[in-house]
């Protein structure tokens, strides 16, 4: 059973990794996404607000986890995404996969984060340090990364 959480409160990556351990688990791979203040030469970010589609979000993440579990031999899988207003330096997303072997765990994590970006209904609005607010536009590079995993 994958562990899927959509929540406003922070999560603890260490505690999440510990939950995925076990006698049949050879290793755990994970990715922790953090709100970044600087975006190249563009204006700095003061905060991000995450909106989502309650109900569809959880279903989309469960479907994503099921695809990873069908493709790789996983002993466990966790996806956590925060919603609401987040400041630079705060955790925003966590994905982890546990497996008997590192290859499956590492590939599943890369797949999960690539696909999450294009297949789960979340939207980011950024508050910039100049006081303006903007909806973040989808990136073609994210679409390409997800498409690269197509079976």
């Amino acid at each position, binding site marked *: 059973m994958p562990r899927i959480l959509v929540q406003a409160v922070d999560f603890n990556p260490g505690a999440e990794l510990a939950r995925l351990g076990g006698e049949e688990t050879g290793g755990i791979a994970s990715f922790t996404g953090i709100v970044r203040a600087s975006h190249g030469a563009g204006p700095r970010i003061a905060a991000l607000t*995450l909106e989502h589609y309650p109900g569809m979000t959880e279903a989309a993440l469960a479907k994503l986890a099921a695809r990873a579990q069908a493709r790789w031999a996983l002993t466990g899988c966790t996806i956590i995404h925060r919603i609401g207003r987040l400041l630079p330096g705060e955790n925003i997303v966590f994905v982890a996969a546990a497996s008997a072997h590192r290859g499956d765990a590492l590939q599943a994590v890369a797949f999960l984060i690539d696909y999450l970006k294009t297949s789960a209904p979340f939207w980011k609005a950024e508050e910039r340090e100049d006081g303006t607010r903007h909806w973040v536009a989808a990136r073609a590079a994210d679409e390409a990364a997800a498409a690269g995993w197509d079976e």
Partner: protein
Amino acid sequence: MKLLYFAWVREKIGQTEENLPLPEGVSTVGGLVSWLRARSPGHAAAFADPRLIRCAIGQEFVGMDTPLAGAAEVAFFPPVTGG
């Protein structure tokens, strides 16, 4: 039919949701987008560029040529930007 709006689609329309019967002559998602554009200046702004609009029926992503028959919950939103 319940329509849900998210992110800048919601902000431009000025509503999170609205209920309406399937308009006469409208049979697909793309047809509904065209119909909604005439509903208010906010709708017109939200749906000005259909290439930036994504849709879900019953909480599943669908394309613009998907039939609306039997749809109870239809959501419109921009391309997703999570992660």
